[in-house]
Structure formats: structure tokens, C-alpha cells
């Protein structure tokens, strides 16, 4: 083989690999494109003002909406965030600060395991711990289940991001007479804040789409409720209920619900990106 042949073979091989990579990217994106296409095309038809302002009608009566489920999803994710954001971030700080300790390794392993636990199992756990003692389904139980799912995600993300903060910043703070805790909370955490915000929102987006843990925690509610101790509707459970029903009108509402859910997640992600960019730009990065 001559030198020019080798060079040509190399070029062909390179082109082949680049082509394969591009093909895989396209294949990976195809399902996403289809999901979005179907959700939007099917959902848009059934979206109207009633969908946002009315509660479900009784079986057989057309019309109505998902006002109660939208509020329910917001409350459930809000509760989950209220529980998981402080616990998750503080655990992340602990993991990053005491990364060498045996306890931290154990916590890290536990968090990773919890992350991999099927969400239905988390639901069972919340059922046993919150639903059974109170003897009925509640918003609180649903929020708890989602919060349990969020904690390990936030903790591990926070840890990773804190470890990216240059050690020089820590030394700078300590050299000015900061205690360790002070340095962490006034310099290191703020430096990682844009990333942490993004991580929290990604976790929120992930749990907002959960159905399984809610099935026997917050259950469902055909009426409008904001009570923490009563069952509450959520978009995901409502979509599930409607989608498996035999009614054409409910199928259409399920599509609309899916579209609203995707939109909420999208808006949250964009808001988080904006917030993170704002925080970062104030510091000139």
C-alpha cells in the first residue's frame, strides 16, 4: 500500500465514523421530535380556556378542564421542592466538604441507589409512611413521595458543582479570616449557584412528570382542592386516567394535559436558564 492509499483509507474511515455519529444523533432525536409533534398536534386541538378554568365534568358530559389538576401538579411539585431543595443542597454541601469520609461515601452510595429505585417503589414507601398513619390519601403524601425522589438528584448535582469551584476561592476566603462554614456558604456555594439552580429545575422537571409515585399517595380528585390533607388531582394522574378511559372526549383532554405538562416543564427550564444566566452575568462570567 502506498502512502497516499493509507491517507485515503484514513480519510474514508474518519468520514465513516463522523457519519455514524451524526446518524446516531439523528436517531436519538427522532423519538423526541415525534413525541413533541404528537403532543402538540393532538393537544392543541383540545386546548381552550375551559381547559384551564374548569374542573372535570361528570362521566359522559363533554367539556370541562383540568384546572384542579394543574393547580395540583404545581402544589405537589412545590411541596416536593420545599422539602428536597434545602435537604438536597445541604447534603450536597456535606458530600463535597467531607468527600473523603466514610460516612460521605455511604451517603453518596445511598443517594445513587435511591436515584435508581423505581418511582413506584418510592410511592409504596410514601404510602406506608404518610398515607397509612393518616388513613387517607393526601397532597402531603404525594409531595413527600416526589420530594424523596428529588433529594438524591439535587444532592449529587450540588456535590458535583461544588467540586468544580476552584480551591483558590476557598483559600482566599479562609485567608481573610473566614471559618470553614462561612467560606462554604458565602463564597463556594454562591460561585456554584447558577449550576445549582439549573440542577434544581432539571430535578423539578423530572418529578413533575412522575405518575407512579402519585397513584397511591395523592391519588386523584375530581374536584378543586388546595387542601394538604385531602387527595389532590395532578396532570399526570389525570392524563393516565383519561388516556385509559373509553371516552373520545377524555382522550382529547389527555393530549391537552400532556401538552400543558410539557409546556410547564419547558417554561420552568427556560426560566431557570435565564435565572442562571442572570446570576452568572452579574459576576461577569
Amino acid at each position, binding site marked *: 500500500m502506498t502512502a497516499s492509499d493509507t491517507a485515503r483509507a484514513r480519510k474514508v474511515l474518519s468520514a465513516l465514523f463522523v457519519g455514524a455519529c451524526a446518524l446516531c444523533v439523528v436517531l436519538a432525536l427522532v423519538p423526541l421530535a415525534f413525541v413533541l409533534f404528537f403532543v402538540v398536534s393532538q393537544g392543541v386541538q383540545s386546548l381552550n380556556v375551559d381547559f384551564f378554568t374548569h374542573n372535570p365534568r361528570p362521566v359522559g358530559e363533554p367539556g370541562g378542564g383540568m384546572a384542579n389538576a394543574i393547580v395540583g401538579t404545581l402544589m405537589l411539585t412545590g411541596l416536593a421542592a420545599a422539602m428536597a431543595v434545602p435537604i438536597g443542597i445541604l447534603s450536597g454541601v456535606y458530600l463535597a466538604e467531607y468527600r473523603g469520609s466514610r460516612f460521605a461515601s455511604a451517603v453518596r452510595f445511598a443517594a445513587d441507589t435511591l436515584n435508581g429505585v423505581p418511582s413506584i417503589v418510592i410511592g409504596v414507601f410514601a404510602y406506608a409512611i404518610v398515607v397509612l398513619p393518616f388513613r387517607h390519601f393526601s397532597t402531603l403524601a404525594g409531595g413527600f413521595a416526589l420530594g424523596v425522589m428529588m433529594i438524591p438528584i439535587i444532592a449529587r448535582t450540588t456535590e458535583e458543582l461544588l467540586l468544580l469551584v476552584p480551591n483558590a476561592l476557598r483559600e482566599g476566603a479562609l*485567608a481573610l*479570616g473566614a471559618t470553614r462554614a462561612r467560606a462554604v456558604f458565602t*463564597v463556594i456555594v454562591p460561585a456554584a449557584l447558577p449550576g445549582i439552580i439549573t440542577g434544581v429545575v432539571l430535578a423539578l422537571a423530572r418529578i413533575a412528570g412522575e405518575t407512579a409515585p402519585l397513584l397511591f399517595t395523592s391519588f386523584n380528585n375530581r374536584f378543586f382542592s388546595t387542601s394538604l390533607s385531602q387527595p389532590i388531582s395532578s396532570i399526570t394522574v389525570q392524563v393516565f386516567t383519561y388516556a385509559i378511559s373509553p371516552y373520545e372526549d377524555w382522550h382529547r383532554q389527555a393530549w391537552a394535559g400532556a401538552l400543558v405538562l410539557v409546556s410547564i416543564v419547558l417554561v420552568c427550564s427556560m426560566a431557570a436558564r435565564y435565572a442562571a444566566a442572570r446570576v452568572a452575568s452579574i459576576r*461577569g*462570567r
Partner: protein
Amino acid sequence: MNPPLVKVRVRGAEADLHDPAPAAHIETLKIDVEHLSFFYGEKRALEDISIQIRPNVVTAFIGPSGCGKSTFLRTLNRMNDIIPGARVEGRVCVDGQDIYRPGVDVVAVRRKVGMVFQKSNPFPKSIFENIAYGLRINKLTSNRSEMAARVEESLHQAALWDEVKDRLHESALALSGGQQQRLCIARALAVRPDILLMDEPASALDPIATQRIEELIYQLKAKFTIVIVTHNMQQAARVSDFTAFFWLGRLVEFERTDKMFTAPSEKLTEDYLTGRFG
């Protein structure tokens, strides 16, 4: 095994210079280190170092890479405490107080002994907030105007005020490398330390920025005691009153800078200064 290289005592340096006192008595010493050894785990990084530094002088630490000069500098404000497995033997007295005595408040030590690092490390906050940070965490000012005055004073001292006075609330990270390093100096000065430790403060800067830092060091010595680590012998010669030469974790020679650079008493120092090794 060779005998100890030298036991260095400052002799020629005790007279004249800027200190009216004819001899350096214990009371007039700013830093008095006795038989200091430092260990990273089992590894001994510094061996039996004794050195005496008077107030308001600039002392330069020179020596080849890995000779322990930075490690030694960091024992002077206990920055090595944060390294797991680090251990110190001997005494480091600042104003007559051993900073390694049990019960000493490390935070108070670090406030008194400020530090500027090799690579400028401004916090990702505004210029103002960078300087105000030390004031806030140590609660050194009681109101906003006092804080603003302290910030301005520090920026003046670090010769940065004129360049940043119109953009105090912009990000510190938008400053140039030299400006960032002066910002870090200002930040260290804001808590009004007595001593300023500088770990190769100009090594990442261009010649013009370096010159500004050197001029600054010269001005600051009226108010502060400065210890600077440098790998640049010309810089040591330009900015310092005294020079300490470290080699393999030992202090080989500590002498007035002019004397060390013209007539070092140790062969090893001479070899290093003339570029025979290092």
C-alpha cells in the same frame, strides 16, 4: 550525612536599614520562628527552620521549585491547616505569641496575617463586594458609609482606586490579570493585617503589571511587614530588604538582600544565585 548546612542568625541585618533600633530584640520582632519542621504525612517538607523577621521590612523567600518556600510561607498564617495529614513542630511567634499554641483562634491569626496567592483569586462578586467580604465576615465596620470608606481606602492602598472607582459594582472577574491581583491585595489589606504574605504574587503577570505590584510592595512596607515568595531572583533583589534562601526544605541562608546578592556566605547560595543549579 552532612552536618546541618548552617544555623542562620541575622547579624549584618541587625544594624541600620529602616529600623532605628540598633539590634533586633525579641520585643521588636514581628515574626519569630524557632525550629520549625513541617510534615505532609510522613514526608518532612521543612526541616528545623529558624528565622526572625522585623516589622516593616520586606523579606523575600527564594529557592528552586519544591524547596519548601511556599510551604513555609503558609505555615505563617496556618494555611497548611486545611491540608489533611499536615503537621507542624516548633514555634511560630507573631508579635511574641505562638500561633500554634493550643487554643489559638486561627481566624484571628489569619486576619492579622493576610495572604495574597500566586494566582489571583477574586471571588465571583463585584469589585466592592470582594473588598467588603473580609469586613463583613469579621464584622469590622458598623455601617455602610464606614464600609465604603474602608473599601476605598484599601483600593487606594493597592493603587487600584483610580482604575475602578467608576465601576465598583461590576464584576471583579472583568478586571485584567494585574488588576485582579491588586484587587486581591486590596482585599487582604481591607481587614488591616499587620503582616502580608505574598506567594509569587506576580508570577502570572506581564512585566508592566509586575512592575506595578513591585512598586506597591515598596509603598506598603511602611505600614506592613511583608514576606514574599518569588522564583524570580531579580524580583527578590528589587523589592526585598532581606532574603532567605531555601533548599530541600532547609533554610540555607538568611541575609540582607544587598549582601546576599553580592557576597553570600554560603557556597550553596552562591551556586544558586549564579545559576549553577535550580
